[in-house]
């Protein structure tokens, strides 16, 4: 992983904790390649919708684009990389 990606992931983890009010978690609790939803972080469908809206607000990624790429929600890493790639394009 290059330094830029590592930095982005660290920042994105902090953002998720803030957006989803999971204050009892630290960025280290979010494991890059583990599933984002279900066990682990305990995120659910309401969090998924919340993330989609925050991506719109903070990264200008529109909902349709996310809807077409549901697979990016598989793990933290897939989501973070998608957002990083999208924001570097702007």
């Amino acid at each position, binding site marked *: 992983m290059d330094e830029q990606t590592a930095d982005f992931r660290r920042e994105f983890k902090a953002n998720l904790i803030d957006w989803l009010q999971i204050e009892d978690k630290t960025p280290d609790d979010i494991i890059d390649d583990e599933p984002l939803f279900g066990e682990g972080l305990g995120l*659910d*469908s*309401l969090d998924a*919708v919340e993330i989609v*809206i925050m991506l719109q607000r903070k990264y200008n990624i529109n909902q349709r684009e996310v809807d077409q790429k549901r697979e990016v929600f598989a793990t933290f890493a897939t989501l973070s990389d998608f957002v990083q790639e999208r924001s570097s394009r702007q």
Partner: protein
Amino acid sequence: MNVCISGFGAVSSLGVGLEATRQGLYAPPKLPTLPTRVDTSLSLPVFEVPLAGESGQPGGFTNTMLELALTEALDQAGLTRSSLAGRKVGVCIGTTVACQLNNIPFYDDLRSGRAASADLFRRYVVSAPAEWLRRELKLNGPTINVSNACASGADAIGIGALWLEQGACDLVIAGGADELNKVPLDGFHALGICSKQPCRPFAADRDGLNLGEGAGVMVLERPDDAKRRGHCPRHTLAGFGKAADAYHITQPHPDGVGLEMAITNAFRQADAKPTDVAFINAHGTGTDVNDRVEGQTLARLFPPNFAYMSTKSLVGHTLGAAGALEAIFTCIMLEQGVVARNHRCPACPPDIPVAPLSADLAFDGDLALSTSLAFGGSNTALVIKRMS
């Protein structure tokens, strides 16, 4: 439980009054349209009540609809407003919007430190529907606004019936009212559960609900009291069951545990069993999760090929009014001996074992069930009986 439904009145997108409601239940469905009273950029069709009015004003359109439904219900029950003054009459009204101050310009002034309208604030305080009706009609009995999200209207009717059984009052005005409002419209859209098409409860391709608005009011009495004044009610409320899922803030328990408990409790009160009901007027919002959980739970509890449908394909989701309006629709269908079809669900969906009614169905029975599932896992079941 044996409480008379001495009269009822309804306002919904089907129209104002029971005649329009009765016709609308069996007519080709009116389709939802873009809202005219709500300032919105979202292209979400809704079921509007065909009346002029202004949205978002405390004590405004919601109470206008409530008063229309009340007037009809009292008339049906053979009662006048003046005859109720000073009597032990309970008022129990379910609502969501009317108990929240969500007037956007008012709040914008408040948060910006500008002078916010004191008049609007005062109207908000004095317009909570049940308390407003108690004052308007000079009643002297228990007075409650139920704010139990989408089950509020059904809960209000159940509570009213309990009051009568426990002797808390001698007559009850119970029901629900809610108007279309920008905040729930934007909120339900944010939750991703609004359809951009006419909603399709229980259908394989269902993709969300349409909001609606309206008011439904019932006048409830003890059988002896109705008889004494020479009134012959046509329905009774035979059971009220209520149970919680203890599961999730916006989604029902996947196994419908709370719903099952609510139905079981309502049947116990009604001394009835699943084979006794002619039909079920289901909550059926048109959202993926609600309809799956409800459809599967009903299929588990009721005999094969039981008849069920959702009137949300006709009037949308009227939130705090829904449980009350649906109880009234249930009364009308019991009276007609014909249960209206569930529109826009042509075939059995893959995730629900039994399809809802795709054609109107004549029946012989005299018992029906109406279910409500709300945010926060709050489930309510009402058993309604037609008097022979």
